[in-house]
């Protein structure tokens, strides 16, 4: 284990109870991710990729094993602690964009800033990022007036507005055509290279996975 690791996972297990049936989603995952790394995770559906992301992102607690994210032991975090982790340490990008439909793009980003406690503070660095994302002229539109690629770039802007240590992108190009997929992947790569943003990306697409510094494959709840 290296001291530069922002994510340290050892023997991570996750069991879900569905009705009276217990389902093992993760069966002993070991993974270390360095600060500033762009890691791609590939694997078939049901391999446990999303569950791994949900645990790293503090959306659900681990059942067993050691998970440290940015020096926080996730196994010992309370619900409130995991909420703070999502607020300050991780940013999510989803396949379906998950923008709030009633708000403009600008307000979608502002909500994240507000929740992160950065509301009203000037952030020149973020303004620069908005320029890099190429969405400055689309901020006053609601999601239904934006293309899929634009929506995903807004979602990325929202995910990094509070400068999280880790950006978790779950199939970020899954709903996009080739051109928009490439644009989004270039944005993620640019954020990683320009800002040193740690990026973990789930994808089914080997070409997309190739944007990462490293690719890990999951199957049956394990990294192989």
């Amino acid at each position, binding site marked *: 284990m290296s001291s530069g690791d922002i994510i340290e996972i050892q023997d991570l297990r996750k069991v879900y109870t569905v009705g009276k049936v217990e389902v093992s989603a993760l069966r002993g995952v070991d993974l270390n991710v360095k600060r500033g790394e762009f890691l791609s995770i590939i694997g078939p559906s049901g391999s446990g990729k999303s569950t791994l992301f949900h645990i790293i992102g503090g959306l*659900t607690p681990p059942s067993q094993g050691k998970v440290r994210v940015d020096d926080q032991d996730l196994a010992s975090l309370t619900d409130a602690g995991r909420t703070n982790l999502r607020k300050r340490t991780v940013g999510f990008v*989803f396949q379906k964009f998950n923008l709030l439909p009633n*708000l403009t793009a600008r307000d979608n980003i502002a909500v994240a800033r507000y*929740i992160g406690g950065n509301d009203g503070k000037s952030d020149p660095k973020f303004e620069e990022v908005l320029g890099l994302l190429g969405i400055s002229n689309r901020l006053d539109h609601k999601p239904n007036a934006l293309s899929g690629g634009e929506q995903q770039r807004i979602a990325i802007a929202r995910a990094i507005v509070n400068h999280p240590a880790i950006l978790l992108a779950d199939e970020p190009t899954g709903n996009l055509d080739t051109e928009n997929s490439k644009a989004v992947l270039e944005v993620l790569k640019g954020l990683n290279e320009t800002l040193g943003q740690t990026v973990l990306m789930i994808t089914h697409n080997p070409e997309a996975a190739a944007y990462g510094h490293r690719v890990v494959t999951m199957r049956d709840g394990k990294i192989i």
Partner: protein
Amino acid sequence: MTGKMVLANLKHKPMRSLLSFLLIGVPVTLILTLVGLSHGMLNDAERRARGSGGDIMVRGGDSKAILSGGTANLSEGLIPFFEKQPHVKAAMGVITHSVELPLVVNGVDSGQFDRVSGGLHFISGGWFQGEFDVIVDQYYAKQKKIHVGESIKILNRDWRVSGIVEGGQLAHILVPLKTLQGLDSATNRLSFIYLKLDDPANTQIVMQQLNEVTKGGYTIWSMADVASQFRESVNSQGLNEFIFVIIGIGVVIGFAVVCLSMYMAVLQRTREIGILKSLGGSKNFILGIIWLEALILGLGGTAFGILLSIGAKYAIEILKPASFQVEIVYIWWPIVLGITLAGATLGALYPGISAASHDPIEALAYE
């Protein structure tokens, strides 16, 4: 930012928001109209009693409740007796009879009335010319669409309208004293006697004298007492309890409307709640959004209800200007707002807690 989100949510579903305003507004209207009606009726009755011009009112010994005005248990022979008492300038006997609730007819003697009140303010026509003449005030004339010289049916018989007056003096309908006494089989009997004094400052002295002379055989009130007796009498008949029941219904309706509306909203926005949670939104943050939205619904519903109650007041004034008097009781606006916000807060609790407790992963997967 929370406010912006809530307003965006309300704008996103305008029909839901408007229906919620309407449904919250209806009990608000009921409460304000009922309170306005009770204030209006009481104040009107009080004004009319004062409009008699009397300084003291005398009733039968056992007539404690002023609203039970139908009992004619005073002898007409008391008029000259009271007029002989020190400081009493004039006395007027009145007999009263209910016609169509809440309206009553007063039987009066024109001579006594002029001496005590200084006379009626006629808009058209004049005093009674015949046994079955009637004088109505402008509100009753408007309500019944009648004019001087026309015939009107009251107490199961026709009366000729001899005059229309401005109103504010005794009942909306005045008939000759002797006629009403005859119809009520109460010859020489009176319901009230009003006394006009040489100086209103002597009211307490005269009341004391009269109580001594009559050995407490009659109920003697100053006009200030009459006002308080009106209130006491109405309260003793359970008006306050009735208002409390209506308020309770209002709270329950407000609670139910907000609860249902917010519960539907939470169901519709399950995914959005998941998004907010993924951004780090805490349970209190989610609860706060639901609560604020409920409060805005309550606020909007109250404003809507106030507007409706003002509309109801004018509608009543146009349709039944004589029967019902509704006042706008401004002090009740903040009270009813507080009641509505309390109902909205209660109504937001379950949906709010439900939303705050959503599992973020399940919420994000919600279609």
